């Protein structure tokens, strides 16, 4: 099992934000995390990334408890794209992506041609290749998101954690980023809002009030009852001309 959450919990003061979450992710799998705002998706991802330390339970990577790995090892194995992160520094797109190499370079090691290649490739993958020299503050929200993803790719991780990566993206790039993540050999956990996008994941986990309600294949998990209970909307499955199904929502009457 490449990534495993064992009875994870996190609380601030007495408030339990995430509670007894356990699941496993297989190598190469894409797991979608869905749930309403405030259900604990971001907190869970931060626990998985080792940015928050759990108040109970443990995260295992390749069978090793994360608490016993050092930060550099974690950075070489796992990359995390936060829901929001910004800077007021006037760095270029290329600078931002080069940060992804941090865990791979020691203080005495010079920047190499290989690092250059990896950075260039990462930029190509998110369709930002021509924009290397652009300054951060001139980028649109979606372009910034793609740079963040490129930086995570430059980490060459085995595991990719993405917190609502499609939020600021136009439709074309929403589709291409999700397709990219699925096509990569990496294991990924993606918090998503769009249930139709979640349908394209290998498995889906549903968060509600800090707990993992259920986890399984999209067709098992995404039932009309569950959507009504968790999200408070009524849904209908429609079938497209190519035979795939998609969900439409209506407020509950």
């Amino acid at each position: 099992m490449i990534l495993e959450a064992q009875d994870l919990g996190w609380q601030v003061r007495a408030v339990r934000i995430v509670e007894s979450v356990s699941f496993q992710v297989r190598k190469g799998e894409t797991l979608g995390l869905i749930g309403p705002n405030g259900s604990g998706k971001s907190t869970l991802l931060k626990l998985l990334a080792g940015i928050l330390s759990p108040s109970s339970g443990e995260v295992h990577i390749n069978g090793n408890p994360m608490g016993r790995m050092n930060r550099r090892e974690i950075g070489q194995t796992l990359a995390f794209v936060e829901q929001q992160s910004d800077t007021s520094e006037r760095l270029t797109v290329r600078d931002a992506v080069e940060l992804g190499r941090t865990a791979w370079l020691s203080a005495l090691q010079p920047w190499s041609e290989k690092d250059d290649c990896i950075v260039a490739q990462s930029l190509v993958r998110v369709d930002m290749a021509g924009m290397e020299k652009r300054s951060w503050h001139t980028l649109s929200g979606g372009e910034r998101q793609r740079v963040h993803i490129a930086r995570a790719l430059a980490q060459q991780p085995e595991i990719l954690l993405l917190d609502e990566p499609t939020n600021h993206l136009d439709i074309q790039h929403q589709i291409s980023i999700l397709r990219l993540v699925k096509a990569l050999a990496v294991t990924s956990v993606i918090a998503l809002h769009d249930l139709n996008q979640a349908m394209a994941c290998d498995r889906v986990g549903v968060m509600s009030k800090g707990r993992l309600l259920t986890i399984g294949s999209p067709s098992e998990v995404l039932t009309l009852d569950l959507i009504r209970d968790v999200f408070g909307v009524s849904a209908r499955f429609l079938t497209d001309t190519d035979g795939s199904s998609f969900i439409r929502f209506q407020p509950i009457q």
Partner: protein
Amino acid sequence: MSDIAIEQARRITYRRVGYVSASILLIIAAIALGVTVGETSMPLHLVGQTLANKMLGASYALDPIDAGIIWNYRLTRAIVAAFCGASLSISGVVLQAMLRNALADPYILGISAGASTGAVTVLILGLGGGLLSLSLGAFAGSLVSFVLVVMLARAAGGGVGIQATGLIILSGIAGSQLFNALTSFIITRSANAEQVRGVMFWLMGNLSGVRWDDVMLAVPIATIGICVCIWHRRELDAFTFGADSAASLGVPVRKVQAIVIGAAAMMTAVMVSIVGSIGFVGIVIPHAARFLVGPRHAQLLPVAALMGGVFLVLADIGSRILVPNQVLPIGVITALVGAPGFALILIRGRRTR
């Protein structure tokens, strides 16, 4: 590696060697200027002959008073000014990166003021009046004030982050006012006020008392501090998008924060115990350096160190010649130059945000 790559690597190496030698020449030129200019100006050949006598064992016949002024007063002063400027500038760069706050610097955050209080306390309590114990007191004071300021900012709801820009600065102002008041209080109350140097020394800085034993402390501490920061250049870069982002890039956040902030506090404390607290170097110089070479620390740190060094040597010259027959506190000069620079940063900062 291909031939082209080797060729390219060689060219980059040449360029680097070029930059480094140009920088060293620049700082030596500034120090030489600092030695020649003064109440009585010392011609360059006299300076050269003095150095040759002292360092190479030459035996030029020189007026011992001239030689003494050059060797014991002017040269020590210029060297300490250079390393002090570099230290303060690097401290500013590091604090700005760690707090992600363009306005952070050791003076504004109250670190310098805390260092003054620490040093003065050591003097008054008579815990050994030596330079080293003075510096240790200053180091303790600087850490106490930094922790207090950050705690105050946290309690005020900001903490460390982009939104907290204003809060940490306000807390820093409160901290420096408090520690400056404490310093003044301690000095005024103390029976042996004359041995503590004046209040002005600790609040505005002064290079007049600098001698060789100060050089022997300032140079190694500045060198160590700067090397520690340059060693962590990539980790400093990784904080661009915040501490969480740095952690997920593989940086042990707490450890790096402790090391580089500790280095900044150490450099600031030692410089304060030697020359008092000098403002604006730590904020204006890093911004100028960023303007020239961008935000990546591999370039930013050395350039900021160089510019800080040259700036403070020039400021010291200014402090000695601006008013005839009188030496101004060096902090007056850095503030006169720095305050408009600071204003420029505020205006530019607003436009980009």
